[in-house]
C-alpha cells in the first residue's frame, strides 16, 4: 500500500480486515512441473529439453546457469477473490485497496510455501523465482508457461491476447534446481528498473 515507516493504527485495523477478506475468499491453487533445462549464459538462452521451448535472454540464462533442471510453477488466488476485491472497490474503496495489496502478499506467501515444499521434495536447493517480464525474460514466454503447466485445466488460470493472466492475482515462475546452496541471491537493488516505486537499495 506504499506505507513507509510505522503505520497509523487506522491502517493496521484496515490491514486486519483485509486479512479476514483474503482468508474468507482466496482459494490458493497451484501446479508445478519438473523439467530438464539447458541454460546457456554465454549465448543467452534457456531451453526446456524435449518440449521445443527456447527462451532468449541474458537475465534468465544467467540466473539459471549451472542448473540442469527446474520447476515451472504457477499459483493463483482464484476468481472468487478477484470478484470480491472488485466489489469492495465499489462499496468500501479503502478496504478494497488494502485487500488488493493483501492479496499480493498472500500470493507471494503461497509461492514461498510451494517452493519450500518443492525443495524438500527434490532434496536440493532452489533458486529464487524468476517470472516472465523480469529483466529481459519476455512476457511472451507466458504462453509457454501456461501451455506446459496446462494452467487453464489444472488451476483455472488463463492468458489473454495481451499476455495478462486471469485471475489477476496469479503468478507463473521458473525456479532453478541447484546443487549448491543459493549464493547469488539478488536483492531488489540489483534490478535494472531504477524508477520502480517499490525499489529498495541493497543493504
Amino acid at each position, binding site marked *: 500500500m506504499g506505507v*513507509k515507516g510505522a503505520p497509523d493504527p*487506522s491502517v493496521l485495523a*484496515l490491514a486486519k480486515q483485509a486479512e479476514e477478506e483474503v482468508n474468507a475468499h482466496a482459494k490458493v491453487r497451484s501446479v508445478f512441473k519438473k523439467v530438464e533445462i539447458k541454460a546457456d549464459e554465454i549465448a543467452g538462452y534457456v531451453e526446456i529439453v524435449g518440449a521445443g521451448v527456447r527462451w532468449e535472454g541474458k537475465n534468465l540464462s544467467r540466473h539459471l546457469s549451472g542448473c540442469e533442471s527446474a520447476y515451472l510453477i504457477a499459483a493463483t488466488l482464484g476468481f472468487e477473490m478477484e470478484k470480491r*476485491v472488485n*466489489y469492495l472497490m465499489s462499496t468500501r474503496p479503502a478496504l478494497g485497496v488494502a485487500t488488493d495489496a493483501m492479496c499480493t502478499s498472500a500470493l507471494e506467501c503461497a509461492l514461498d510455501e510451494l517452493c519450500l515444499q518443492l525443495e524438500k521434495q527434490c532434496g536440493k536447493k532452489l533458486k529464487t523465482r524468476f517470472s516472465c517480464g523480469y529483466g529481459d525474460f519476455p512476457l511472451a514466454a507466458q504462453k509457454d508457461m501456461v501451455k506446459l503447466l496446462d494452467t487453464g485445466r489444472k488451476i*483455472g488460470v*488463463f492468458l489473454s491476447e495481451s*499476455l495478462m493472466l486471469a485471475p489477476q492475482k496469479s503468478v507463473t515462475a521458473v525456479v532453478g534446481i541447484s546443487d549448491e546452496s543459493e549464493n547469488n541471491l539478488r536483492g531488489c537493488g540489483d534490478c535494472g528498473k531504477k524508477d520502480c*516505486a517499490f525499489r529498495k537499495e541493497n543493504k
Partner: protein
Amino acid sequence: MNFLEFLKENTVILDGALGTQFQAKGMPAGKSPEYYNIERPELVEEIHRGYIAAGSDVIYTNTFGANSVKMDIDKVERIVRAGVEIARRAADGKFVALDIGPTGALLEPLGSMTFQQAYEVFSQIIRAGADADIIVIETMSDMAELRAALLAARENSSLPVMCSMTFEEGGRTFTGVSAEAFALTASPLADVIGVNCSLGPDKLLPIMKRIASHTTKPLFIKANAGLPDEKMRYSIGAEEFARMYEEYADMGVNILGGCCGTSPEYIAKIKSTLGNKKPAAREVNVPAAVCSASQVVYLDRVRVIGERINPTGKKAMKEALLKGDMGYVAARAIEQAEAGADILDVNAGVPGIDEKAVLCQMVKRIQAAVELPLQIDCGKPDAIEAALRAVNGKAIVNSVNAEEASLNGILPIVAKYGAAVVGLAVDERGIPSTVEGRLENARRIIERAKAFGIPEQDIYIDCLTLTVSAEQGQALNTLEALRRIKSEYGVRTVLGVSNISFGLPARGAINSAFLTMAMQAGLDLPIINPNIPEMMAAVDAFNVLSCADKGCSRWVERYASTKAEPAAAPAEEGKDIYYYISKGLPQAADVTREKLNVMQPLQVIDELLIPALNRVGDDYEKGVIFLPQLISAAEAAKLCFEEVKSHIKGGAVGKGDIVLATVFGDVHDIGKNIVKTVLENYGYNVIDLGKNVPPQTVVDAVKKGNVKLCGLSALMTTTVENMKKTIELLREQCPDCKIMVGGAVLTEEYAEKIGADMYCKDAAASARYANAIFLPQ
C-alpha cells in the same frame, strides 16, 4: 440411427482419454496433439480403434484444442476436417463426436475476449466439422464461453449438441459457475448435458446429482481415473472405475465414458459392467428458478426484483444512459444488491436511444459488478434477443402481452434462450377493467407460451397495478385477479408495486400496505425499490408469516444484529473539516452541514472542501499519509459533497465531466478505480467506461458529453500500444479533449512519446491535473 433416438433406448458408451494415450505413445510435453491429425493420422486412428474395439459407441475427434486462439487460424479448418475424417474411418459405423474444448482465453468480464470473438472461433470449428454426427463441447469452466460455443453450435449446425463443464469438489467451476446454474442455463441450448474431467467418479457423483435435479435433458459423465500422483499414475483402476458408474446408471445417467487417465481397458470394463443396461427412468421436477452464472434464485418464497435500473421518471439514470455512463448503472446494481434485492430489472427505455446497444452494455456492466440474476425489461424483440445473448445465466424477459404481435415476436426468443417470461394481462384493447378480462388475457399468454415450449414454472403473470388515486376500485380488482390466477392457473406472479400510490402523499405507507395485501393474494415477485427498508421488511416478514422462511432463520440473521449503529461521536470543538476528512471520519458531513447554515453551498466547496482535499493530497505527496488513508479521506469527502448537493436545487455540483477507461486488452482496473474514487470526491462527475474499452468507445463517450478531460490507464507494455491508439483517435476526433494517462509501466517520457498531455503517477496527481484543467486560477 439418430444419436438422440439411440440414447433413449441404450446405455451409450463414450470413449476414454486421448491425451493420456498420446503421452503413452511418446508424444513430447508441450506438443499439441491436434497436429497429429496431419502429421501422424495413423497414430490417431489407432487410438480411436482401440476405443471402438473396447466397446465405445461414440468416439470424440482429436480436435479438443483445434481453435484459432491456440493455433494459426488457417490451420484450424484442415486439422478439424482431418480429425473428423480419421474418426470416421476408425468408427466402424459408430458415432463420431466433434470435440470442442475451451479456447484457452477468457471472456469478458473476467478476461478480455468478447462474446462475439469467442462465437466466431467456435463457429469456424463447427462449420469445419460438419461431417460429424454429434457436437460435444467439453471441459468448460466459464459460463460465457460455454454459451458462446452452444449458440455457435445451434446457429451453424443442426447436429445434436452435448456439453459438459468441469467442476471442483465443491460443485463450482474455476470461474465460480455452480452445478445448478450450469444445468438451468445450458439445458435449453443443449440436447445432452454432463460433467467431465477434474475428479474421479466418486467425487463427481454429488455434483452430477445436483445437475440431475435441475434438468430434464439426458446426462453424461466422463470422469478422470481419480487423481494423479507425481509420476502421473492415476488412483482409480478400471474395475473400480466401472463399478463407481453403477450408481450413475441407477440414477439415469446413461451416457458413460472416461477422461484423463482412462484407457480402452476402462471403457471395456464399463461396457461389460453396464453396457447392456436399459436406461433407468428419471423423475425430475425442475424447480422454478432464475440464475446468474454463480447464483441461483429459487422462487420458493417471495423474491424481490429491484426496480432502480430504469430511466422512467429518474433523471440521473436517464442522463447516465444518454452519456453512456455505465459506472452509474453498476453503482445502482451494487446498491440494490447490498439492500437485499434478489433479481435486478434492467430497462434502457429512453426516447431516441439505441435501446438494443445500450441494453447490452448495461447487462454486461451489471454482470461484472454483481452476481444477481437479471430481468430484461423491454418490449422490442431485437433488443431482447441481443440482451439475452449477453446474459450469463437464465434471465426473465419482461414482458409479453396478450397481443398476437407481442406473443409471436417475443415468445420464440424466450424459448430459444430458455429464459423465464412475464406476461402482462393486457391486450390491444388495454388493461381490462374486470377481473375476468385479466384472467382471459393471462390464460391466452400461458397457453401460447406453453405451445412455444416454455415450461409452466417459467411463466409469470403480471396483473398490473393501477394508480389508486385515479381508479380506486381497481386495487381490489388487481388483488382478486392475482388470487384467481394463482388458484386457477398455478403460475408465478409478478407486480410493479410503487405505481399504486402515485399522486398521493406518504406514498411509502400505501406502497407497503398494498405490497402486503398483494403477497397475501399470491404475489411471488414484487418489483420494488429495495433501498426502502420498510418495503424489504414487509417482504421478509411475509416470508416468516407464510412459513417460507423456515425457522425464521433469514429474519433473525437479518434483523437480530440491527442494533442501532453506535452513533458517531459528535464533531468536536476546534476540529475542522480538514481534520475529519484527513482521518476519514463521517463527522466531516456534520461539520459540512453546520457550515451550510452560514455559508453558500458553492462557497463551502471552494473555501472548505477543496482546500481540505488539496491538503490531504499534499500530505499524500509528502508521505505523511498513504494510499488507504487517501482513499478513506476521499470517502469522507464524498459524504460532505452529498450534504452540499442536498442544499442545491437540482443537486448539481459537478465541476465537470471526466471520462475514465482502462484501455482495450487490459482488465486490470484497480488503478483506474482508485482514480475514479478520488476524482468523484473532488466533485467531478466521472463517466467510467470500465475496462477493456475499445478506442472508439472512448472517443464516442468524449464526443457525446463534449468532455474536456479523459483519463486512460494501462498496466503492461502489451496494452500501452492500445493506449497510444486511443490517444491517436481522440486527437483526430476530439482535438479539444485533454488526456491524462497512468499505469504501472508508464513513465513521464513514455506518456509524452504516445502523445498524452499529462502523466499522472497516482490518483492525487490526476486530481491536481483535473483541477488545473477545470479550475484554472
